[in-house]
């Protein structure tokens, strides 16, 4: 096993990785930017070193500095988490060159899947179905793309070749909008990935986003851990994920078939470690390869909940050369799991990010609840990194019970000082179509009702008004005391004394 693991990441995922390392009794090294000195991942790591300024390009994207730190402190492995350097073949290569184990796939596998266009071509060659698009044509100019678009047909999607996480993606409904959208997509792609290459893909109407988690060791064993459904997205950003998929449901044949195809796609690039094959599935249960994420996913905990497997521990064991601890036949699904991504953003005002200090963070608790988070009471949300402040994962026996538990957890969860999308999730979990499992990847953009009035208790605004008045009244009384103290108004003191006694 490793002597020491450096975690080249921040926030909830760095904390999550540290937790598994600690349970494996492997010392950890955290790295931090100026903005993150007091963050949990630094406080929880066994060692911590300064990386650079707050901007990611000057800190968490500085692979060279990270390898330098690893060498200086004697870390013999690096876990990249997700985002930042996780899908950079050059970083994986640089680790290898420096004699440090990169906890993830080989550089060649990352490269093969990292260019989204090339990946589509590769897996199609291996017999995996792909969504029609411009795959296999290389990087094209705007002119070429405008010319090819009518062949693919509308609506279609513009996607960054180096992409991930929905950044830079644009939908095109009509060729007249396309030129502007190409520009916007390239601009965002350049800003996010340092690469403005883009490609086109037909948009499958009414499609569901269903992905298969796979694990592959260095001894040729590849297994899948069944599916996650991630169709609840807003502008291609996943918001809620579940395992299993309500769409696949009891169709064990489809589950195993997609699982096998995912294993096949992984084998096509000689894949090692944990990875995810994303599919679009249409209403007739046709499935198409979308892309492969050659890293740990944000939503991995729902799979951990239903399979009982700690995926991060498996990643570390695989990287250390251990064979997989389980065969395909050992994988059983128990119960149902849902993850809500809790973002610092205001669902009432177009989901704009909310910065500032979280003055209190009170976690939900009790049976079947897991919180993965890097924030805490006193945490300062900065504009440098993404808006994800926590993942709330619940587990129960059936989908219905899991939803009921999630509603309970969302109500218990308090993030005070900044706005969060908790009311969005609450509204979603009351939506009849969501409850019935009738939704596709467009569902949130098209269907979710406004968040006001979804609460069964119509009295809530009145109660909020009363609570505010009582708080304000008490403030006034307090101020009055200060003023009147000089005037020695004894009677008022008495009243205040009683108030304080009953309220302290």
């Amino acid at each position, binding site marked *: 096993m490793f002597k020491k693991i450096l975690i080249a990441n921040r926030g909830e995922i760095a904390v999550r990785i540290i937790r598994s390392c600690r349970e494996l009794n492997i010392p950890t090294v955290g790295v931090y930017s100026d903005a993150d000195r007091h963050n949990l991942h630094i406080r929880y790591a066994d060692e911590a070193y300064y990386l650079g300024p707050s901007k990611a390009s000057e800190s968490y994207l500085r692979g060279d500095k990270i390898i330098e730190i690893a060498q200086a402190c004697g870390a013999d492995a690096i876990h990249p988490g997700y985002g930042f350097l996780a899908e950079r073949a050059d970083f994986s290569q640089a680790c290898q060159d420096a004699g440090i184990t990169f906890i993830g796939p080989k550089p060649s596998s990352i490269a093969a899947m990292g260019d989204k266009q090339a990946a589509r071509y590769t897996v199609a060659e291996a017999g995996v179905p792909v969504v029609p698009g411009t795959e296999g044509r290389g990087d094209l100019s705007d002119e070429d793309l405008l010319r090819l678009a009518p062949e693919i047909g509308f609506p279609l999607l513009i996607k960054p070749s180096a992409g991930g996480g929905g950044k830079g993606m644009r939908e095109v409904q009509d060729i007249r909008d396309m030129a502007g959208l190409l520009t916007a997509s390239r601009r965002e792609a350049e800003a996010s990935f340092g690469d403005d290459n883009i490609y086109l893909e037909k948009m499958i109407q009414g499609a569901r986003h269903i992905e298969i988690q796979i694990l592959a060791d260095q001894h040729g064993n590849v297994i899948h851990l069944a599916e996650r459904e991630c169709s609840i997205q807003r502008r291609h950003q996943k918001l809620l994920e579940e395992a299993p998929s309500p769409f696949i449901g009891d169709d064990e044949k489809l589950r195993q078939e997609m699982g096998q195809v995912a294993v096949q796609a992984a084998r096509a690039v000689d894949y090692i470690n944990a990875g995810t094959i994303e599919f679009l599935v249409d209403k007739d249960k046709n499935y198409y390869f979308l892309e492969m994420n050659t890293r740990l996913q944000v939503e991995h905990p729902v799979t951990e909940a239903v399979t009982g497997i700690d995926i991060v521990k498996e990643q570390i064991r695989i990287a250390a050369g251990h064979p997989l601890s389980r065969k395909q036949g050992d994988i059983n699904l128990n119960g149902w799991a849902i993850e809500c991504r809790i973002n*610092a953003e205001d669902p009432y005002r177009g989901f704009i990010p909310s910065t500032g200090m979280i003055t209190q963070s009170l976690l939900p608790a009790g049976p079947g609840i897991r919180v993965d988070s890097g924030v805490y009471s006193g945490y300062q949300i900065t504009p440098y990194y993404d808006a994800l402040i926590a993942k709330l994962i619940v587990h129960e026996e059936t989908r219905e019970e899991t939803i009921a538990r999630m509603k309970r957890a969302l109500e218990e969860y308090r993030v005070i000082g900044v706005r969060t999308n908790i*009311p969005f999730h609450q509204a979603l979990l009351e939506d009849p179509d969501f409850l019935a499992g009738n939704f596709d990847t467009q569902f949130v953009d098209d269907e979710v009702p406004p968040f006001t009035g979804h609460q069964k208790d119509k009295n809530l605004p009145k109660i909020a*008004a009363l609570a*505010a008045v*009582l*708080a304000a009244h008490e403030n006034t009384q307090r101020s009055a005391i200060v003023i009147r103290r000089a005037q020695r108004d004894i009677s008022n003191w008495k009243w205040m004394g009683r108030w304080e006694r009953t309220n302290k």
Partner: protein
Amino acid sequence: MKYIATIEDKEYEIEILSETRVLIDDVPHEIDFKHLRQYLSFSLLVDGKSYETNIYQDNSDWEVLLRGRQFTVNVEDERERRLRLAAGHISVHKGKFVLRAPMPGLVIDIPVAEGDQISKGDVLVILESMKMQNELTAPRDGTVTRIQAKVNDNVERKESLLVLE
């Protein structure tokens, strides 16, 4: 003491009769209000119903977190309201609206010009922050009277970007 609490467009008239009795829009209620002020934790019993809330003041409004929802409540006492009405500020929705940056970020686009007539919901500024491009929209109809930021500006939180009248 009588107060007027406003949430969005709805007003509630709340009179505090004693520590345990209030009138809400003239309907009497038994209450019990208990808190850990330092931890922003408030427990409110209204006619036996229990509500846990977190309350804090943000500028002049009160933010109330209740069962996962966050309410912004404006509270005035009778005297304040009389003074304000006498001063002629009849509606909070008329007059100048200053669009301020809700977070630090980079101005990507300002798709309006001074003098433009705009409608509620129109995009006024696109601001990049936390790895996302965010559209700041008009809260109501009006005219853009002044633009204070320009494309590629790095702006601070609460910095004013433009004025709507």
